[in-house]
């Protein structure tokens, strides 16, 4: 009897907190996204009206408005492309790094892993700010390029999409390396030797042995980078220019500048549906089908 009470306490305390402060806020976003906008405070009408009997007052206008305007669609596509490119570069840099760390001897391995992840602990904002210093017109990168004679005058490195990609790859790299390392660390290195002994060349060994075995790590790492990057606001704001608009910026301005709460909510809710739901479903299915949970 006592155990039951105790279990309930453990299960329901966080349950209560998360329903109240996480699920209900999400529901409110949805509610406001289907509300009729109006001038006033708050800038939307109630979805239930009681003046002439009970009436439900909802609209999908906000979604139509977003999905028919290239300004919003274009920004979302820009963000998806940005996330895709950044994820690709994180993988390109992260994979060899994770692979070589995983194949080091055990003492070195732990030291290297800590060294790779430690920068992730230092402030995110300040790491982005560091790139602002590096990429200045009279910054260190331009000084190096000038001295090497690669360019004769300082390049405009800051305030464009390349600077944004640079900043993202830099700040999100550890998120790619960790899950990759997790999977690469698990598999038996003798498999590589075996495949070489069986006559497969390096190229084939990589594509037939190493890549399939580390596939779950690649998927996990890519998701951990891709999803937050689509909603990234700070990095484009600090390092980006006016050449491209991104989802995060549009959402921010729709809310704080245009004061269009229903529009901003519709943008946010579309973002949840498009980005997060597929992964959550995948995760729930995955945890149902796999006997042992792993992270």
């Amino acid at each position: 009897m006592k155990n039951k009470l105790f279990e309930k306490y453990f299960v329901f305390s966080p349950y209560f907190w998360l329903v109240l402060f996480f699920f209900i806020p999400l529901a409110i976003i949805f509610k406001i996204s289907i509300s009729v906008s109006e001038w006033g405070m708050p800038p939307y009408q109630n979805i239930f009206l009681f003046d002439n009997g009970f009436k439900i007052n909802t609209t999908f206008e906000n979604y139509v408005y977003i999905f028919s305007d290239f300004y919003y669609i274009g920004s979302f596509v820009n963000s998806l492309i940005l996330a895709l490119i950044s994820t690709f570069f994180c993988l390109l840099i992260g994979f060899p790094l994770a692979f070589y760390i995983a194949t080091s001897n055990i003492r070195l391995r732990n030291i290297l892993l800590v060294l790779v992840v430690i920068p992730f602990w230092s402030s995110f904002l300040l790491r982005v700010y560091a790139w602002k210093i590096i990429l200045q017109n009279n910054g260190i990168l331009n000084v190096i390029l000038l001295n090497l004679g690669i360019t004769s005058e300082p390049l405009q490195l800051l305030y464009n999409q390349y600077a944004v990609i640079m900043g993202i790859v830099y700040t999100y790299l550890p998120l790619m390396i960790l899950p990759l390392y997790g999977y690469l660390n698990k598999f038996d290195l003798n498999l590589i030797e075996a495949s070489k002994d069986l006559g497969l060349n390096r190229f084939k060994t990589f594509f037939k042995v190493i890549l399939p075995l580390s596939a779950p790590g690649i998927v996990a790492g890519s998701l951990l980078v891709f999803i937050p990057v689509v909603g990234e606001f700070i990095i484009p704001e600090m390092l980006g220019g006016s050449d491209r608009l991104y989802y995060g910026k549009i959402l921010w301005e729709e809310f704080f500048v245009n004061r269009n709460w229903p529009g901003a909510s519709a943008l946010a809710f579309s973002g949840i549906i498009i980005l997060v739901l597929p992964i959550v479903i995948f995760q729930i299915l995955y945890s149902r089908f796999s006997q042992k949970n792993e992270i």
Partner: protein
Amino acid sequence: MKSSLIKSTVIFLGLFFLYFPILVLIFYSFNENKRVMVWKGFSLRWYTELFNNEQIIEAFIISIKIAALSATFATILGVMIGYSLVRIRKIPFKSFYIFLSSTPLVLPELILGLSMLLFFISLNNVIGFPSSRGQLTIFISHVTFCIAFVAIIIQARLTDFNKNIEEAAMDLGYNYTKVLYKITLPIILPSIIAGWLLAFTISLDDLVVASFTTGPGANTLPIVVFSKVRLGLSPEVNALSAILMFALIIIGLFYFYFNKKFKH
């Protein structure tokens, strides 16, 4: 021979890429010149100015306070989730429970921040609380998204460790509660500390959610720093960066120490 050369090169370049920007930042923090990019000479001037900057000091104190409190709450609730998911069979609507406890890990901060702000505004319209946003609303938001990070650490730790110890204690006459407090919690204590440190750092570092849920008198450190460097560079922020990076890296090392303590 050749492959080990490639290996060392890749690792060296990778680490160089990760540490170079941090070193640049620390280097420029010692620049005497007000114009950050023009080197004038070594000086601790900006460190002195930093400690005399009341706005930054005040923001720092607010941030530490919110981070410590929200990490503590998030750790308590996160431990409960981790424990429930591994040890308790009957959880009503378990998929929903997993959804609630894992989605904050991937949800873009911007969406989370917006939903919290609209929630607080709606709540205020209905029950008249919270009448204005500030430290309390930031605290609630930070607890909410830090819970998931603690839960995942605890879940991993509990999955790892041998259930037999708990069962043996039960056989010896310990009741459920006693097993938890005398056996389970002490064993996973390093992971609990690691979870707290992670939550503390995440809260301390958060800009986006805090920007949405802040109010008068609740400018956290990232908010102040962002307002200073959004459009340009600031020598005081350079000095702050150097100190903060150093402190956070120490916290990170502690995290690794506690998280790995019982792994072989």
